[in-house]
């Protein structure tokens, strides 16, 4: 555990937005939403595409291309959309969405995919 002493007159309030974004992208989506409330610079950083691109699954382009109903202005919007609106993938055999807090993939299988022996 690294201990860092906190003092007055620190330069952290001048931390560039890019650096803040790098820190935020190491957290989880739920934390990123709360960090956006710290300051207007934090909000800018926490809502940037570079952060939410890290939260989206690495193959999100393949998944999203299977659905025709997508037009999101930002990666954060895309993320939230994938959380709130499940999409059909794999020729309609599965539905896909993201878990909001952690960004984990959730699949639901249609009965056709299950074979009960």
């Amino acid at each position, binding site marked *: *555990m*690294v*201990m*860092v*002493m*906190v*003092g*007055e*007159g*620190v*330069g*952290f*309030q001048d*931390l560039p937005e890019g*650096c803040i974004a*790098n*820190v935020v992208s*190491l*957290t989880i989506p739920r*934390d990123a939403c*709360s*960090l956006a*409330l*710290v*300051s*207007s*610079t934090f909000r800018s950083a926490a809502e940037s595409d570079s952060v939410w691109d890290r939260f989206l699954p690495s193959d999100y382009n393949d998944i999203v291309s299977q659905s025709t109903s997508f037009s999101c202005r930002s990666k954060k919007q895309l993320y939230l959309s994938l959380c709130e609106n499940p999409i059909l993938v794999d020729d309609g055999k599965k539905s896909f969405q993201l878990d909001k807090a952690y960004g984990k993939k959730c699949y639901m299988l249609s009965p056709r995919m299950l074979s009960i022996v």
Partner: protein
Amino acid sequence: MTQLDRLSVYHWLNAWCIKPVGGALVRQEPEYILLALMGSPLKKIMLCSSEKEIFSVEEQVMVQHSVIINNMIEDGSYNHEESKIPLDCVDSKTLKKVIDYCTHHTHHHNDNQEDLEAWDAQFLNVDSNGLYDLLMAANYLEIRNLLDLIYGTIKNMIKGKKIDEIRRIFNIKDHGFTPEEEEQNRKEYPHFY
């Protein structure tokens, strides 16, 4: 041959100071033996802090860690006879620490992960001014592993903390929101404050 192997060979040769020349073994300075055999791993470069203090450091150490310095050496803009690399935004105290970090990680890269992490933890046992200065220097010099280490540390400082505590840690006196926005945020997400 890895950098560490070169150093091991250097130390071995240093102990013996011998070089085969036309079948005979001749006493030589170890640097020249190494130059002849493997190039020049102990070539030094000069870094100049914002306080105009010069630091001499092994070229391979900085080239391995800093993308900026590696590019300067590779594109030939650094002249070993005369040049110093001016680092006007890094003060002496911070530059010394950065050099320590890079030197340690070059010479100890074969150490086990636990030992390296313990060393890193001790290295970052600084106040937040020092941490900020290290972050700015690592960012400027593009030292990836040091940047990742510092970002990870900052993340741990704020993980699970309330907004008011995070503002205190970062000494944020003016959050930049309008009073209405701030009030709205506190009403909508009271558990974060």
